[in-house]
């Protein structure tokens, strides 16, 4: 089969799944809503509870899930390709822990001033992720021409531990309620209740995906090792830099919307590779689509399974994702 046909098949297959999930998710929830009433525009919006549940609660939440899932899954693919390590996740290089530090500071010290109408916690989380990215990059750059992935990995893991310690340090001064809120933030939450966090993350998201589109071929070459990639005409340092910054920004944007939701960034890339093979030109779009569908699906389970109480979505991603992934591993001939 030619690449074009495989590409089309992948896109149609995963695209159909994603669209189906996105259509079903806002229709299902702990409350029964009447679709005809939702789209009955003769009733003023402020009087129409069904429409408000649909447009204020469920639609932003579904979109947030789709964005976050797509960003984490694609960033996971890029980090695994860049570090040539199957265990890499969007959280390996300290980006999410930097974001966590920002969020914890905002929660503990009750920062209320955000940026352009967005509340403080997402802004602080994104700022924290940027700080982590800059530090890790500077370290990896310091004593090498180009970018050493080994130093990158070591610096990232160390910064992860360092930021974790800072998170605990800040938490130590927090009141009990704030500590609990921090912990809850760390489990991930997609109930955004407005489009603002999504819109705020949109420029970063678009930029990251544009770079991802360009990165597919360079990542294929990098998988052969930097030397072979170089000999085939790839500017390795440039590709690595692009991969590092785009995937880090994608992670920062995703964490600012939904918190550090685990497992999506590692399980989806591997799942997709088991289905479409290792070619990044297929893996990247497939992971993006499947990541979106997976997280929206997990959030659907999280908000309905124990209704009226909700489970944190991060618990569901691991509970569903873990066994499913193991089953795929065993089943594979």
């Amino acid at each position, binding site marked *: 089969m030619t690449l074009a046909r495989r590409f089309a098949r992948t896109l149609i297959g995963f695209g159909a799944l994603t669209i189906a999930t996105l259509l079903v998710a806002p229709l299902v929830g702990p409350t029964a809503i009447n679709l005809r009433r939702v789209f009955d525009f003769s009733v003023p919006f402020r009087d129409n*509870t069904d429409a408000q549940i649909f447009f204020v609660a469920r639609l932003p939440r579904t979109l947030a899930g789709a964005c976050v899932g797509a960003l984490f899954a694609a960033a996971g693919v890029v980090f695994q390709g860049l570090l040539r390590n199957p265990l890499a996740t969007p959280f390996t290089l300290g980006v999410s822990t930097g974001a966590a530090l920002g969020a914890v500071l905002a929660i503990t010290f009750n920062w209320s001033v955000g940026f352009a109408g967005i509340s403080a916690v997402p802004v602080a989380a994104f700022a924290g992720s940027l700080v982590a990215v800059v530090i890790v990059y500077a370290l990896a750059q310091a004593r090498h021409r180009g970018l050493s992935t080994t130093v990158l990995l070591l610096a990232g893991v160390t910064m992860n531990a360092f930021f974790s310690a800072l998170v605990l340090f800040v938490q130590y001064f927090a009141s009990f309620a704030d500590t*609990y809120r921090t912990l809850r933030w760390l489990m991930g939450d997609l109930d955004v209740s407005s489009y603002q966090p999504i819109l705020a993350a949109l420029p970063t998201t678009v930029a990251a995906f544009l770079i991802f589109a360009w990165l597919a071929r360079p990542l294929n070459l990098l998988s052969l090792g930097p030397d072979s990639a170089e000999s085939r005409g790839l500017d390795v340092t440039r590709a690595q830099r692009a991969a590092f910054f785009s995937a880090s920004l994608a992670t920062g944007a995703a964490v600012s919307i939904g918190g550090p939701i685990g497992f999506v960034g590692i399980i989806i890339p591997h799942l997709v590779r088991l289905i479409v093979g290792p070619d990044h030109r297929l893996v990247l779009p497939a992971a993006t689509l499947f990541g979106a569908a997976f997280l929206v699906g997990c959030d659907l389970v999280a908000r309905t399974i124990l209704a009226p109480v909700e489970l944190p979505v991060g618990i569901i991603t691991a509970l569903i994702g873990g066994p499913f992934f193991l089953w795929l591993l065993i089943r594979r001939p």
Partner: protein
Amino acid sequence: MAAHPKTLSVWAIALLLLLPPNHPITKSLNHQITQSPNHQITQSPNHQIRRIISLVPAVTEMLYAIGAGPRIVAVSSYDTYPPEVKKLPNVGALLDPNVERILSLKPDLVIVYGSQTDLMQQLARASIGVFDYRHAGLADVTSTIRTLGERTGDGAAAEALSQRIERGLDAIRQKLKGRPRPRTLLVFGRERLALRGIYASGGIGFLNDMLEVAGGTNVFAEVRMQAVQASTEQILAKRPDVVLETRATNSAFPIGDRDAELSVWKTLASVPAVRNGRVLFLFDDRIVIPGPRVVEGTEVMAKALHPDLFK
């Protein structure tokens, strides 16, 4: 993230909160909570108590109210009331009790949270009396005061205080008898300037009980948990008549932010409370600390819910 004792205990609490209401663990917890708190007595009760350390602000207030205040030698880092406590040494709190300082102050009774099992064991080994406490319902405030009074030798004062509290609560109930009961969402935490991470009172616990006495009906009455994370959808579906946002005094929204904090609710325009301007802020320790001031706290709530009756 590395396991840290504080993180671990918070995890444990979080996991308990996540359990479904009909789960056996939750059931046994609720059972324990609705019964009067289980006080471990590791010392003969007629022993004269002279040096008390309280790690629980609510119990510190109770001790002062029954006249045992002068015998308190140290309190927790969260204690702020009565003002005298600010002069006392502090020995940590729920998650970070300073055992060394506690022992060095030679207490003969230490008030701890029921979850501080390590601390309880350490104190038992040092043959120091322990009074363990858990936040529970409103009825447990007076039962705790009575048990505490017997323990410290202030039984008569404790009985008098308990009766005063019970009469005070009854008076509020009587006053509101037959009044319409607004369906109320009682929020005690959320993200600043956003409707995210909203924590509300479930159908058990002192906040829920105070709300009921204050003439309101909790919209989450059927959820058998003390804390519920309320999603936007649930709030829209429950359609509360009143939203009470309550916080401790030191977590009050700054005056300059209050209009902005109020207007974040406008997204949920179909909720009657939002539409009728009945989203109310109550920053009052008397509401969030289940101590001897619960009557005043409940009155504050009642005034917010029934303003016409308390002119």
